[in-house]
């Protein structure tokens, strides 16, 4: 598991992909920080946090698209699957590799609160809960995108599938709002959709609401997609077509 994680993680930094994506991410986040926080003169970065998940919708698909497709292309899939490691440990290894790159990315954002703490008095707890939310939301996104890379052999297709899945996750909110206006059944459905919405749960964290059910919900989501990925690999092994 850790062997795969270590290898993939290094491989991201052996190619320009990690640098480009992290650079892009930091550039956009800094832009928002300067425009939204520094210029407004408030020691509050919640607008930055509530924007991160939109940014991740573009960055994580590109980051994770290689997770399984690259191995299929190079034929190294055989090496992994015939090694004495379980499918679960292979998938978790892949997941952790992408997640670690995500963590590096998140580490760069620590400079914004640092600036806030030096020059102002931000709300420490809100920032803490924002980060907790970000870490779990990132795991959700990564697990979904790694899953997408397991279902296809083409990187671009993997990225597009990931993007569409993430977009649907975002649009659930809009759908919930819309359905909510359609009478009593509609508002009930709307509530279910809102409950299911990961974006909604993430936004709660960034506004300082620390909810344990949300953490459990997101963790279950990650576990489910890791499990789906394992199933995809398993099914391929048994394929009759």
């Amino acid at each position: 598991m850790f062997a795969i994680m270590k290898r993939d993680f290094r491989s991201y930094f052996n190619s320009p992909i990690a640098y480009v994506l992290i650079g892009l991410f930091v550039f956009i986040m800094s832009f928002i920080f300067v425009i939204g926080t520094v210029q407004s003169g408030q020691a509050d970065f919640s607008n930055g946090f509530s924007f991160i998940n939109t940014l991740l919708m573009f960055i994580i698909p590109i980051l994770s698209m290689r997770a399984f497709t690259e191995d299929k292309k190079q034929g190294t899939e055989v090496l992994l699957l015939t090694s004495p490691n379980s499918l679960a440990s292979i998938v978790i290894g892949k997941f952790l590799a992408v997640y670690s790159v995500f963590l590096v990315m998140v580490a760069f954002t620590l400079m914004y609160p640092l600036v806030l703490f030096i020059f102002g008095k931000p709300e420490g707890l809100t920032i803490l809960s924002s980060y907790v939310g970000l870490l779990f939301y990132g795991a959700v996104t990564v697990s979904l995108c790694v899953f997408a890379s397991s279902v296809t052999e083409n990187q671009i297709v993997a990225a597009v599938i990931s993007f569409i899945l993430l977009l649907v996750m975002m649009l659930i909110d809009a759908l919930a709002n819309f359905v909510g206006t359609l009478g009593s059944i509609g508002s009930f459905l709307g509530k279910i959709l809102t409950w299911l919405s990961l974006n909604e749960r993430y936004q709660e964290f960034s506004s300082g609401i620390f909810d344990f059910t949300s953490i459990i919900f997101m963790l279950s989501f990650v576990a489910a997609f890791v499990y789906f990925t394992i199933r995809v690999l398993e099914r391929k092994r048994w394929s009759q077509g």
Partner: protein
Amino acid sequence: MIEISNLTKSYGKNKAVDDVSFTVQKGEILGFLGPNGAGKSTTMNILTGFISSTSGTVKVDGFDVLEHPGEVKKRIGYLPEQPPLYMDMTVNEYLNFCADLKSVPKKDWKNQKVDIMELVKITHVSHRLVKNLSKGYKQRVGLAQALVGTPDVLVLDEPTVGLDPKQIIEIRKLIKALGKDHTIILSSHILPEVSAVCDRVVIINKGKIAAIDTPENLSKKLSDFSRFTITIAGPEGRVRDAMQEVYGIKYLETQGTSHKDEFSYIVEADKEVDVRKPLFNKLAEHGFPILELKSLSLSLEDIFLQLTTTETKED
């Protein structure tokens, strides 16, 4: 060491492997021979646990590949048709990764790595990126990968494909040497390779086993006659008449002459009867000396073609 019984893998209606059974003894080098698309790679992929069979069982060292995949995979080093290399790593990094993947204990690994690199002669390229290596060296790195963790069984899918003749000879030598303390299954569609390296041969065609035996026995078994050429001093007509009197000779053909009154003939005789002694006596009786006698066994190539073409006719 390896028991494969009634192995079948279907893709839709198509059977890539059809009821294949054979065993490989410990320390044996088994050649897996067949035309392209015969099911060699599929069988190897099933054996190594990369894909699953539709039915049938594979056991390695007593462990079923489906029930105890971990135990089986631990015992097998696999070199697939396309060596599974990460292009963005150096040879050294790559082998370290393989050792990690196979959980080779750190303290053993240092020496093992040196040994393996010496054995496949890649020590001098250990700091180069895999993607910059030539095809031959990539193949060797792939082979090194299969040796990591000192598995008992090596499964090598067309290990010499795409190499130049010198490299082929080297790799064959290496395989022969590895055969001393490994059980090896080796696939190939190149016949001389199999007869040069393997103790036993499985010939597979269209997913079915066409024959299993040692290369020598295969040649013997598959010819219905014993064939030999014989060169005899004496006038052709009288020699032929004399030979035709010998019991068991089925076919006689004059092949040509090199000197005046010296003719060579191709003789085919019943396999059950050794006609050489009666033939000698008969010719001695008539006073025709035998100058040369050479038995013609079928080459593996002939057998291969014979087996695979009869199969086609049956369909």
